């Protein structure tokens, strides 16, 4: 089975530009989360979407936005890029267990490496 796929793998932008990152979850997973991982740090939560609705938002400015499509794939958009947005952006998918009444462990893609010049 295919894992979580992200595109593109690498991206170079300049300050002030905008970027769109894409994520396809594992088949059957309806929850998609986005994380930002700055070099030398742990991932920081940006958004979670479940069934096309935003379910959680981290402490990121409004320049960051996301959406989830009917096929459960997702996009992360970042406007007015800053040098500090340079990072590895990770997408993770999961499913909700009605039996356990809890989300199951997240599976991560290999990320998009975004460099801002």
């Amino acid at each position, binding site marked *: 089975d295919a894992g979580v796929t992200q595109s593109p793998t690498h991206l170079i932008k300049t300050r002030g530009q905008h970027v769109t990152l894409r994520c396809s979850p594992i088949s059957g997973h309806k929850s998609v989360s986005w994380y930002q991982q700055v070099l030398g740090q742990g*991932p920081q939560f940006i958004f979670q979407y479940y069934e096309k609705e935003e*379910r959680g938002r981290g402490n990121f400015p409004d320049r960051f936005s996301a959406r989830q499509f009917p096929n459960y794939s997702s996009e992360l958009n970042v406007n007015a890029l800053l040098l500090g947005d340079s990072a590895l952006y*990770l997408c993770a998918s999961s499913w909700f267990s009605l039996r356990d009444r*809890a*989300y199951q*462990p*997240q599976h*991560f893609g290999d990320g998009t490496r975004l460099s801002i010049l």
Partner: protein
Amino acid sequence: AQSVAQPEDQVNVAEGNPLTVKCTYSVSGNPYLFWYVQYPNRGLQFLLKYITGDNLVKGSYGFEAEFNKSQTSFHLKKPSALVSDSALYFCAVRGDGGATNKLIFGTGTLLAVQP
């Protein structure tokens, strides 16, 4: 607020020796705890989780973790380290009491296994 701490930036161990990677947590309510591993230029791979039940949790690749409520710790262990275990290890706790799927990660511990 929920948080995790990984007190060691790096752990060095010889191949064949047991390894321990430390994690302590701070949560309100019941902790949902996880360990993930990250290889260079890759995403995170799930190793194991603690939700409830036995304090010793077994996971992938021979790893296990010991949950200790009194010490608020969730240390990752393996009886015999392999060179291929060398990677960056993250402890995480589920934030927001489980209402969302938000994970709060520690700063990571680099495990170096020498042949």
